[in-house]
Every structure is written in C-alpha cells, then in structure tokens.
C-alpha cells in the first residue's frame, strides 16, 4: 500500500482532477488533518492519556444540477480514483435540484488574512506537561473546601489541524488551527447530598489559556454553591441567565436564523426579517474573522471570504446566516456562513456569534430582582425550533430582595423564545469570548417556573 504523502493541496488537486476526468461538471473538495493529545487526571492520579491522528478527504461532485458527497480515510494512491468515480456515479442518479451549485468564481475570497488561529508555542508541551497542568487544575479545585471529596477529573488537551479546500471554479485555500483546553469537574458532598459542576477554558493560543488554578477555583465555587439545593413552588418569576446559560439561548436564536431552518419553514423567525424579534437592548453579531476566535476561518466552506454580519440590531432582525444554497432558495445572497464537515454538503451555521455587551454589571442585574431565579445550568432538549416553545430543566440560585440565597434544583423554566428575547430587560457588561457562541448575563422579565 502506497500512501499519497504530498501536501494538503496536492490531495485536493488530485481529487478535483479525478472528478473532472470522471465526467463531473463541477466539484469541490476538503482535506483535513487532525492531531490531538490529552491527559485526564483524577484524584491526583493519571487516569487516561490519549493521542490521535486523523486525515480525511471529502468530495462533492456535480452532474449538472445534481450532486453527491462522499468522504474517506483511505488515502492510498490507488484508492482515490475509484472512490471519486463512485461519487460521480452517485451524482448521476440523484435528482437535479435547480438551486444547487458552486458559488460563482467572482464571489470567491481574494484575501487570506492572518487570524491568529494557530499557535506553535504549544508544540513544546509534552505528554508529561499535560499531566502536570491537569493535576494543578484538579488540586486547586479540590483544595478550596473539604466538602469537595471526589472528582470526575481534570483534563488538559491540545489539538492541531490543517484544512485545505478547493473547487473546480479555481479556488484553493488552506489554513492551520490549534486548540488548547483545560477543564475540571469536582464533586461536593454534604450529608446524603452529592453535587457536581465543572468549569473549563479553551483558546487557540496557549498563552491566552486561563491558568489551571483559576479554572479549578471557579469549578469549585460553582460546585459548592449547588449544595443544599431546594425545589421551589410553581410560579411566574423574572429569570437571570448567567453567561453560560445565556449563550444557550443565543444558540437557539442561531439555529433559527440559519438558512436550513428557514427554507425548510422550520424556524420560529420565519418571515420576520426587519421585525422587532428582541428587546431594543439586544444586538447580535456573527463575525467569522474575529482574531483568535474559536470559530474564525479566513474563508467559508465554499471559498467565500468570511465577514462580520449583524444578525440582530437594536432588537430588529437584520440578517440571516446563509450559505449559497439556502441563499438561492430564499432569493438572497450568501453571508459566507457555509460550514461543512469533511463528509457533508455545506450548510449554513454561525461562526463566532455573540450578543454585544450591555451596560449593567451582573451584580446590578441580580440586585434589580426582588424575587426570581439565577440560572447557572440548563438541561434537556425541550426546545421546539419551529414554534419557539421552550421548556428546559434548570438549576441555579434563588434571588430574594436582590441577593442570591439558596441553591435551586429540579425545576423547569418555560416560555416562548420570541417572547423571551423580546422580554430581555437588562443586558450585562460581562461578555467573554469563551466559546464560538457567547453572551453576557441577561434578565428576562417573566417566565413560568414549574417546581413543587
């Protein structure tokens, strides 16, 4: 077996050339190489070390307006040709779709900005270093309080990838990324009660990753404050979402503004362009070129230059997030949000999406609430993207006279996402770019809490 060991773009070239000679009218191809290493430490002992390496080639072939996709890990020289030929044949069987096709060559990215997505500084981190960093993180967490008696462990991980994309319209592009992550999940015990929470940090640059000790201490505080939790009676109350749970609300909004949900008529924001879909205090941005962003990329999954899109401006729905297929379906233009896994056709999805920070400190927001719930965790899948109906399990802290009091668990909060976004009364100043989708602390005026 001879393995094709040329550069990343050579493989993309080979796949595209094979597709052309097999009769494809158009094609595009993605090649990804991914390496990773991680160490998990539990109760001070190494529990797991992981190392990996993957490579995959994905190709989409068109037969006029019909297309098919495939991906493979078998990159031996003589395997690629029959693989690509089978995709061209599949495309000839699938029905033509009038809206399918590659974006026009004139729309393709002409620049390739340096977005600080890769940091070689971490290449010198050895497997033993990973163990030491995870050990420090867990020790810091468990050292905070004697009630922290157990742990699901702390993990340090490090990954790197090389991504290349090319199309028969002439686009060739590639970029590298790195990722560093640290997390810990301590367990606190008090009598018969046992509670677990976690904290983590991740970054493209090693130097910007949080100190292991600070991640550990935050995880410890989050876990301890869950102890002595009570169920509260069913009632209508104001709800404060901490930045982690507020980001989950933004993820539901993201799904509703993406092209797929819109042309399937499966979005609660269908036909709402230009309308007030959130409180005037709410502005939501999607920025594919945020420097060092966890979801940044110089070009999208179809070779278009990524950009900054204002999705919601002062509460008005200002832009959908589209790839070129959903844009054609909707009679609009792509917003350069095509994203694709190696083996799937592109689809629209957010990049770095965030709610712009407001003026209020988290403390001021909590102080403004006479009686309500401060949510720090949400669970379950009770979100209907078609209607916006929302019902999820919630945990957090009870607010009484503007002060956080006891922990709350085993309750649900429910409403409709459109009403919830319109009822956002305060937006926090505490936005941090912790993940692809982020939000600051939020206050929603009224939700139904179901409990005892």
């Amino acid at each position, binding site marked *: 077996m001879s393995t094709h060991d040329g550069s990343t773009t050579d493989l993309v070239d080979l796949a595209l050339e094979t597709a052309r000679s097999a009769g494809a009218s158009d094609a595009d191809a993605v090649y990804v190489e991914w390496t990773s290493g991680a160490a998990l430490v539990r109760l001070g002992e190494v529990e797991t070390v992981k190392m990996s390496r993957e490579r995959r080639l994905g190709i989409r072939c068109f037969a006029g307006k019909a297309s098919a996709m495939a991906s493979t890990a078998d990159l031996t020289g003589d395997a690629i040709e029959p693989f690509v030929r089978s995709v061209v044949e599949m495309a000839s069987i699938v029905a033509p779709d009038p809206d399918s096709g590659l974006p026009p060559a004139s729309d393709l990215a002409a620049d390739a900005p340096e977005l600080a997505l890769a940091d070689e500084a971490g290449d010198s981190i050895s497997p033993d270093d990973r163990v030491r960093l995870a050990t420090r993180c867990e020790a810091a967490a468990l050292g905070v309080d004697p009630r922290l008696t157990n742990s699901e462990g702390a993990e340090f991980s490090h990954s790197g990838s090389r991504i290349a994309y090319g199309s028969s319209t002439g686009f060739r592009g590639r970029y590298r990324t790195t990722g560093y992550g640290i997390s810990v999940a301590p367990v606190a015990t008090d009598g018969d009660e046992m509670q*677990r929470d976690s904290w983590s940090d991740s970054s493209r640059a090693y130097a910007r990753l949080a100190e292991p000790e600070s991640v550990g201490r935050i995880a410890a505080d989050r876990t301890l404050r869950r102890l002595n939790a009570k169920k509260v009676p069913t009632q209508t109350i104001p709800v404060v979402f901490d930045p982690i749970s507020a980001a989950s609300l933004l993820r539901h909004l993201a799904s509703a503004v993406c092209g797929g949900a819109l042309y399937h008529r499966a979005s609660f924001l269908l036909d709402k362009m230009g309308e007030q879909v959130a409180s005037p205090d709410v502005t939501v941005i999607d920025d594919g070129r945020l420097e060092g962003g966890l979801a940044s990329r110089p070009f999208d999954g179809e070779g278009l230059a990524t950009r900054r899109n204002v999705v919601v401006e002062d509460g008005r729905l200002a832009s959908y997030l589209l790839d070129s297929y959903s844009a054609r379906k909707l009679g609009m233009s792509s917003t350069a949000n095509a994203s694709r896994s190696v083996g799937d056709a592109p689809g629209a999805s957010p990049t770095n999406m965030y709610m712009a920070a407001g003026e209020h400190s988290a403390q001021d927001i909590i102080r403004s609430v006479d009686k309500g719930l401060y949510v720090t965790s949400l669970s379950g899948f009770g979100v209907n993207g078609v209607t916006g109906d929302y019902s999820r399990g919630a945990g957090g802290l009870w607010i009484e006279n503007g002060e956080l009091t006891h922990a709350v668990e085993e309750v649900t909060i429910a409403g409709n996402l459109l009403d919830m976004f319109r009822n956002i009364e305060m937006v926090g100043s505490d936005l941090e770019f912790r993940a692809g989708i982020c939000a600051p602390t939020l206050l929603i005026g009224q939700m139904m809490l179901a409990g005892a």
Partner: protein
Amino acid sequence: MTTSADSNALLPTQLIAERFGLDVAALEATLGAALARRADFADLFFEHRVLHSVSLDEGIVKKANQSIVQGVGVRVLAGEKTGYAFSDEISIDNLKLAAENARAIGATSDKSRSVDLRGTPTAPRHDLYPVESSALLPSLTDRAALLSRVDHAARSFDPRIKNVMASVAVEDKVVLVANSEGDLVADHQPLLRISVNCIAEDGAKRQQGSAGGGGRVAFGFLIDGEERALGFAREAARQAIVNLDATDAPAGEMNVVLGPGWPGVLLHEAVGHGLEGDFNRKGTSAFAKLLGESVASELCTVVDDGTIAARRGSLNVDDEGTPTQRNVLIEKGKLCGYLQDRLNAGLMGVPATGNGRRESFMHYPMPRMTNTFMLAGEDDPEDIIRSVDRGLYAVSFGGGQVDITSGKFVFSASEAYRIEGGKLAGPVKGATLIGNGPDVMKRITRVGSDLALDDGVGTCGKDGQSVPVGVGLPTIRIDGITVGGTQA
C-alpha cells in the same frame, strides 16, 4: 467462530489480511509492545465502516452521501489508568507508534511480553443479525424511490403537510478486537435507519412531527408487506397535524401516564446512566452503594438486554469482544446490578456484563446501555388512564438528559394530552418533565401489560461518544412528577 456454520460469520484472520493488510503476528507483536511497561492489559480495536445515506426534502431526493471510515485504536490498561491512541492509517509502523503512545501510562520500563492470539472465541457468540451486505444496501435508485413514496404518503395524509424531510441511512460496519489475553473476535454489524420529519401549516400556525425506525436488519424491513416506511411517514404527518391544535402545557407537579415504547427513555435517563459501572466505581453516581437497596416501586423490573435479535441496541459482542447478555438492573424495585465494561468490572471485582461500547476506533470503551426496558405488569393500559382524574398522558418524547451525581433527570414530551376525569382531553405543547431518578421510580404506581420496544431510532450520548440504543416501556403511571409547561 471458525466453527460457525453461519455463512455470514467472519474469519478474523482473513479479515485482518483482506481489510487491513496485516497478519496475526503483527497484532501479537503490537500487543506485546503495548504491554512493554508494567501494564495489565492491552487491546486493539480495528474498525471498517461504510455509511450510505440518502435524503429527500421539498419532494426532491437532493443528497446522496457515502463515507468510509477505518482505523485502529490501541488501549493499554494499568490499574485505574488508561492509555489510548488511534490512527486512521492502518500499518505496522502506525500500530507500533500507537502502542508506544498508549503505554505512556506505564510507570516502569520492562521488556516486551509475548501474546498468543488464539483466534477462537472464549464464549459462545450470538448471531443476532445475520444480514448479508447485499440485502442491507439496495441500489441508490431503489433507496431514492422509497423516499419519494414516503414523501407522497406523508403529504397524502393531510393537505396541511407542507414539507417532508426524510432520510435513509445504512451503516455497514466490521469490527475486530484482539487483546493481550489472546482473544480475537470479529463482528459484522449492520444498521439501518429511516427518519421522517414533517412540517404542518394551518394559517399562521406551524408545527412539526417526526417518526422513524430501523434496526440491525436488511433493507427489506422498510418495504416488506404494507411498507413499514410509509407507516413512519404517516405517523410523522399525524403527529405534526395533532400538534397544530396543541394548547399550552400545564405547569407543576401532577400525575403522569407514559404510553408504551419510546417513553422508555425515562428508564434510560432516570436509572440507566446512573447504573453504569464507571460512575459507581468512582462513587459519583446517585446510585453508588445502593446495591440491594430499594430504588423503585415493587412493580418495577428493569432489564438491559443486548441479545434481542435485530434490535438497534443489540450486539453479538460488545466493543471489547465480550458477548452481550441480558442484565437485570432492578428486580421488583431492588437494585441488583450495574452495567460493566472490562476496566470497571475488574476494578470492582465483578464480571464484565457485555456493556463495553465505543462510538468508533477513535474512542475508548465505556460502560453503556444496549436495549433498556421495564418488564410488563398486569394493568390494563386503558384502566391506567381512567385512574387519573387530572394529569398528563405523554406518548412521544424528544430526548432526555441526566445529572448522574445529583440524580436529576429531564425528558421532553413531543406529543402529550391532558387527562381530565379519567379521559384524554386535547393535545398540549411539548413540555419537559423533571425528577430525581430513585424518587420518581418509587412513584410508579401502575404498570401496564403492554410492554413495547421503540421503533429503533435511539442514540445515546456520553462524554462525546454516541452509540445506538433501544428503550422500551409498558404504559405506566407516575404519581407526582414536575411538568414544565407554561400554564399554572
């Protein structure tokens, strides 16, 4: 295995040579090298998987997709430590490198040990899904034609059905496990699934409904007799139309009746995850140290059974090569067993239960469920509904989640009705149900005679690993669980 008369049985040695270009000696050398530091155990997990999917949307078969996944994972165990490395390039050099990486957990240098792969199974192997590859995957044309009939069936159900999204996914997977105790086991694992999602519109109202099914079955499962696939299409359409009239769900604690089949997701979340061996060994599960104690009402007997023919959650052998079995988890309310993989069973001093599963060669095994269900009781299902004066009857669920440490779990209804005066009233919008595992299981006061397993669509996620599972339940009544609606 070599003695099996089954034409579909795999010869591990032949498989290694044909699919992976290696021989048994190479595997023995790799295992020996993996053990070179002070390790207790090493195994190799080879996987070759081809996934074929085709999907329809807006009446057009728009997408055809194929992915080929292959690779090998090398695992080394030393006490509680796991070293894991994988590569999707299967070659002797890469195996050596992976073995070196995986054994990094070992403390002291030692010499390579010798491993003798017998190539014979240590226990009788099941043959739960004898499906030929050719019967699993008909032509793309045939699969596309079925989806067009599915589209037609859903739209003919009611003119308010405005869009149908349907897909058929066929997975043809071969796995091979070789370990330092000499076991060499292979399995061919077919998996078929159809999914149908309908959007209904009536004026300004829009809703969705979904259905689907499958298993470790031939494609004929979908087209036999009256075309089971069309039944799923009509079911998805029916649910979308019913939900158009759904009113706000109630909020607060009330009596809830769960219908048979897929609502068994309750057991998966409320008890199943909490009984996985890893959490209990570490003492982080709400069920830790409760073996022999009462954790459910006496009406409840809960089983995890990986040996049911053709089911989505079934396996001949788990992903460590251990034959699957029927494990009674709760018998008449008493906790009597955990789900174990090799590592956790060894550390807890109990036998492995055939529940060591992994998503792919890129993941190391963990204790996981297979098909989890409650045995039938004696009550007439209609009597159970009649016994509730005011409450909720839930027949379909979207999915659930559990915090195994606090025991709190949620699962979200996607089709539910109010019960008023012992009778079903109108449909209500989806709502999340929340409770504490052991507490809710003790509140089960009626168990119906109508045990049903789900249609074969379940996927369970744990630590980022997804595996196919099954659930099942007879109609049951729960006295007092919190329903997360919006109507006080």
